[in-house]
């Protein structure tokens, strides 16, 4: 009998004893987290609990004070070209969209591939057009961001991120700045991404999204992950009082 081939297992993202302070506020307190390839993780928690900071440290938009963050088994570089290279592989979608205001939608999407990946402009435009079609805003390709609704802008931001072929995507409250009728158009795109196998870490309070596609829900409070489980376990049977209180508070409205 031959030895079974042991595939070396490398998590997509790994946090090891990560700490961060803002002055006296301990905003990340001993975070340990492993995100497997293809996993969809939802981070939930009261405001100020450190959830945004948590995902912003994954591409070093925020630095950390102690501990280690690994992307595909390699420590996150501190600066320079290596950091830029890792950032190119880690997609980020922001609460306030952050599209480049002076560029058309199409130019927003091709900027990364052309400048960072060195794709030629024509190819980049073809792929961008396909991505814009996929997120349902192909007709807005030649407008500037301010001419689009919030939901459309966020879908463009997702397309811009996808154009880099990221290995993992981080979403920082992607629907919190949207009018209610636009939330679903963005969530639908995210659901489709999740079902397509994208590794995602999503800070959101959208329970339906969490229930439909997430593998795990993390509940954060005071800079710590105080509870985690499948969406069913977490939403139907939270273990801690903090989580129960929090879920009550967001259910009431």
């Amino acid at each position, binding site marked *: 009998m031959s030895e079974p081939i042991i595939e070396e297992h490398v998590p997509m993202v790994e946090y090891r004893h990560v700490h961060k302070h803002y002055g006296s506020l301990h905003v990340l307190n001993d975070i340990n987290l492993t995100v497997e390839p293809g996993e969809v993780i939802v981070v939930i928690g009261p405001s100020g609990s450190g959830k945004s900071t948590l995902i912003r440290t994954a*591409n070093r*938009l925020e630095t950390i004070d102690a501990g280690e963050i690994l992307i595909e088994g390699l420590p996150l570089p501190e600066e320079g*070209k290596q950091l*830029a*290279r*890792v*950032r*190119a*592989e*880690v*997609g*980020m979608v*922001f609460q*306030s*969209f*952050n*599209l*480049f*205001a*002076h560029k058309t939608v199409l130019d927003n999407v091709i*900027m*990364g591939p052309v*400048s*960072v990946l060195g794709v030629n402009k024509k190819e980049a435009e073809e792929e961008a057009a396909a991505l814009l079609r996929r997120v349902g805003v192909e007709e807005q390709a030649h407008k*500037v961001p*301010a*001419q689009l609704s919030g939901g459309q802008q966020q879908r463009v*931001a997702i397309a*811009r*991120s996808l154009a*880099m072929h990221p290995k993992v995507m981080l979403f920082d409250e992607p629907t919190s700045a949207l009018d209610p009728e636009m939330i679903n158009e963005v969530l639908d795109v995210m659901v489709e991404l999740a079902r397509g196998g994208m590794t995602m870490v999503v800070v959101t309070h959208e329970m339906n999204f969490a229930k439909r596609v997430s593998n795990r829900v993390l509940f954060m409070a005071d800079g710590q992950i105080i509870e985690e489980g499948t969406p069913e376990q977490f939403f139907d049977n939270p273990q801690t009082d903090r989580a129960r209180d929090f879920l009550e508070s967001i259910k009431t409205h």
Partner: protein
Amino acid sequence: MGIEELLGQYGDMYGTALLTTWWMTIVSYAGAMALALVLTIMRVCPIRPLRMFADFFVQVFRNIPGISLLIITVYALPKLDVIFPYDICVIVTTILIASAFGSENFMSGINTISVGQIEAARSLGLTFGQMLRQVVIPQALRSVVLPMTNLLIAVMLTTAIASQVPMKPPELTGLVSYINTRSTGGITTFLISALCYVGTAVFIGYVGNKLDKKVRILR
């Protein structure tokens, strides 16, 4: 002397003076814009000594009267064996001062760009230089058209310091002194130069407004 007599006798000189003012303005402004851009990039770059130097530069030249600086370039620099022709002295002086103000304009233009866009650029993996070239500078330029239009007018008026040195041929203000030491033109001599300045400024303002409407970024 009436206007007709003045123009009859000195009309050609007014024409030359206007052209002199124009070319000094254009050269000074081009130089000032280039220097202002370099200073501004230094002021936002990650290297601290460069930031400190550029901040210091701006503070110094924003706060020196043009005429004092001109006296330094004309009378002090030769002691260091640096001798420029008078017109170059005026242009250098104007560039130094206008670049400080221009850099302040650029900085306010940069401040109109949200931190979020910078973070988005960093998230895509753009280097600092790419981020400057593609995100920061184009937006900063497009949002400072009106203040930079004002600066162009200010540069034109600053070139009047040339009247304090014996430049040949004189520019608009220098010409006033030239004429009034030879004839009795009085206030009319000023009036003609003033009309030239005002006419140019109105034109600059008109073009600036048009340009601003065209490139202004929708937010």
